[in-house]
């Protein structure tokens, strides 16, 4: 793209801004300046991502922007931007209470930008090897951030996340190698056999047995990162023990990025008529995650763990929708993913401030939130109403689409789906009741919170539930068509 004679490459911007910002944030000492710089960097990245809609570069063997990942990039950079605003006030409070010291804050900010870079790189990678490297980088940065409080629980969570994440990543690499092996006889040796655009064009001639085996490894590997049951064990710990902005980014974005990798390989299999249909595998894992997580919601005592299990539940629904396939289910899956990212990060923004004012994450120690902190309390209620899938919010619409399209094709699966969603709904409200209403418990000091990010997200979710602009619908339909 050329503006006033200056050539501007938005794709380079999406990748370079976080890298430059990470380098600066790692050395600048002043907390206020760095928190602001963090926001500036995410704003710039978001602007670069938006400008990708107006002119996108030609695919190279390493990088690619198409309609599918364009959607993901805008979502990622947007939530990254709002989370950085939330993070500024959250980290300010952590510094005051002494849970984090200035060197750790510097490290945290630098890692935040490295994580943004890694996620953007994973999304724009056209090379399946590069995509793997980017997801590994994202995993390592989040491991470091989960352990940043250095308490027993935080270290244990980080260790568990590290070990399980590494195993997942290793299995995914084996799958990637198998895809290369399948492509080599057809495409020829060298770089081309790892380029996604080449692979998908020639996939029809690949050896189906190798491709099947590769997909099983990729599903287990990247599925671990998506948090699908029974590979989810790291997820609740990592969400509960790390800083809350990281919980928001993990739930809202990193799980999506891993799912995106899975979708790319699913498209590869769909292009080969003789390969196994990836749908049933994803449907099974998705339903399993949904039902399992729905029941797990009942016994949570920790507020962040509660919403971590809710993330597993929703990733289950999304994986299920993409597994079903077809224009309507894919549309519903994309919409649900977008809505879940916005809602879940909004909930974590609220939860972060709640945990700070109450000084605990124990649900039993917080009560009557609507009385002590009305804005936070009602914000949280609105978020939970949205995430539980009640009308008129956006998640209701996407869940309705998933359920209705499933009823038309596989009524039995739809019954399990509805059952899981209802169990989760009841579980969430049971817990919400004791948090938001009843006898006020815990400190009632005024919260120094930034409400803007939370209510921006919730307003978007509400708006999407009431009225979806035709342009947006057309866009999602187009992307759903790409997914096949």
């Amino acid at each position, binding site marked *: 793209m050329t503006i006033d004679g200056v050539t501007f490459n938005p794709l380079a911007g999406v990748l370079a801004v976080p890298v430059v910002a990470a380098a600066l944030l790692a050395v600048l000492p002043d907390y206020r300046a760095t928190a602001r710089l963090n926001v500036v960097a995410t704003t710039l990245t978001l602007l670069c991502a938006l400008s990708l809609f107006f002119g996108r570069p030609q695919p190279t063997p390493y990088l690619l922007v198409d309609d599918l990942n364009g959607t993901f990039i805008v979502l990622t950079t947007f939530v990254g931007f709002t989370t950085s605003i939330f993070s500024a006030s959250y980290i300010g409070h952590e510094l005051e209470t002494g849970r984090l010291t200035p060197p750790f804050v510097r490290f945290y900010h630098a890692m935040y930008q490295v994580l943004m870079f890694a996620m953007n790189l994973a999304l724009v990678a056209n090379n399946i090897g590069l995509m793997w*490297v980017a997801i590994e980088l994202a995993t390592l940065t989040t491991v470091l951030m989960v*352990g940043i409080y250095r308490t027993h629980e935080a270290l244990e969570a980080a260790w568990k996340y590290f070990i399980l994440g590494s195993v997942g990543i290793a299995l995914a690499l084996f799958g990637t190698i198998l895809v290369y092996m399948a492509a080599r006889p057809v495409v020829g040796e060298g770089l081309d056999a*790892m380029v996604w655009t080449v692979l998908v064009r020639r996939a029809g001639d690949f050896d189906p047995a190798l491709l099947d085996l590769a997909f099983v490894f990729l599903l287990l590997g990247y599925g671990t990162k998506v948090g699908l049951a029974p590979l989810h064990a790291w997820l609740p710990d990592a969400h509960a023990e790390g800083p809350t902005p990281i919980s928001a980014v993990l739930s809202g974005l990193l799980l999506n990025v891993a799912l995106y990798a899975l979708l790319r390989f699913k498209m590869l299999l769909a292009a080969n008529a003789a390969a196994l249909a990836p749908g049933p595998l994803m449907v099974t894992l998705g339903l399993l995650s949904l039902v399992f997580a729905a029941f797990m919601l009942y016994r949570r005592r920790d507020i962040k763990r509660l919403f971590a299990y809710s993330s597993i539940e929703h990733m289950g629904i999304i994986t299920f929708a993409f597994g079903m396939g077809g224009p309507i289910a894919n549309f519903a899956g994309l919409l649900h993913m977008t809505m879940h990212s916005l809602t879940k990060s909004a909930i974590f923004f609220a939860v972060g401030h709640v945990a700070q004012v109450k000084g605990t994450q124990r649900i039993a120690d917080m009560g009557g939130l609507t009385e002590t902190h009305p804005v936070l309390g009602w914000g949280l209620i609105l978020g939970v109403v949205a995430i539980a899938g009640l009308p008129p919010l956006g998640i209701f619409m996407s869940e309705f689409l998933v359920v209705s399209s499933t009823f038309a094709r596989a009524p039995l699966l739809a019954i399990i789906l509805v059952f899981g969603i209802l169990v989760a709904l009841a579980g969430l409200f049971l817990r919400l009741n004791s948090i938001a209403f009843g006898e006020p418990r815990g400190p009632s000091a005024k919260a120094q919170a930034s409400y803007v990010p939370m209510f921006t997200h919730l307003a978007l979710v509400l708006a999407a539930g009431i009225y979806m602009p035709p342009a947006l619908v057309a866009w999602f339909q187009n992307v759903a068509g790409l997914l096949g």
Partner: protein
Amino acid sequence: MNGIDFDIAHLLAGSLVLVSFLELYQDRLYALLNIYALHALVLAASVAWQAFIQDAPHLYVTAAIALVFKAIVIPVTLHRMIVRLGIHREIEQVVGVGPAMLAGMGLVALSMVVMLRVTHGADPLAREDLAFALAVVLLGLLMMVTRRNAVSQVVGFMSLENGLVLAATGAKGMPLVVEISVAFSILIAFIVIGIFLFRIRERFDTVDVQVIDRFRGERR
């Protein structure tokens, strides 16, 4: 490809599986690290041989990384670390040697059955290599679940990565970008682990994962 080339490649890849079995029943941390060094050494030889028969000079770089970094630097560092932590004498296994070895044999059989069946089209060298590589990966996983000491879990993970390198080099002409990234990720992973071990030491005075596990779960 002539017979002897193939035989040597086969021998080296098979030895890697054998060394994985050796790792499985080491119940002393010090010995385990020595065996891991041997594992990396066999890997280096195997990769170098692949580089020679495939006429792919860039693979020598991978072999050199395996030799210098994995066979020398990491074991030496870990030796020092466990001495400093005072845990160099003993490790305990969750599963006994017998069941672990039987499970290992089952996994090797599984990987042979799976890989040889699906890779009819591939050339024989890559086929055998992938089957052995999957066996090494699965044995590494087995080791991670049968150990409860953080250091031996890390060793299990590193031998798993060795299996991946074997697979990547067996896939003829696979772009260098992946091989370097594998080596690089091990480096990063190792640094992370190093940090973790020291932090864990600071906080728990132990690297026994079962002790760490006591802190798990919901706050009560």
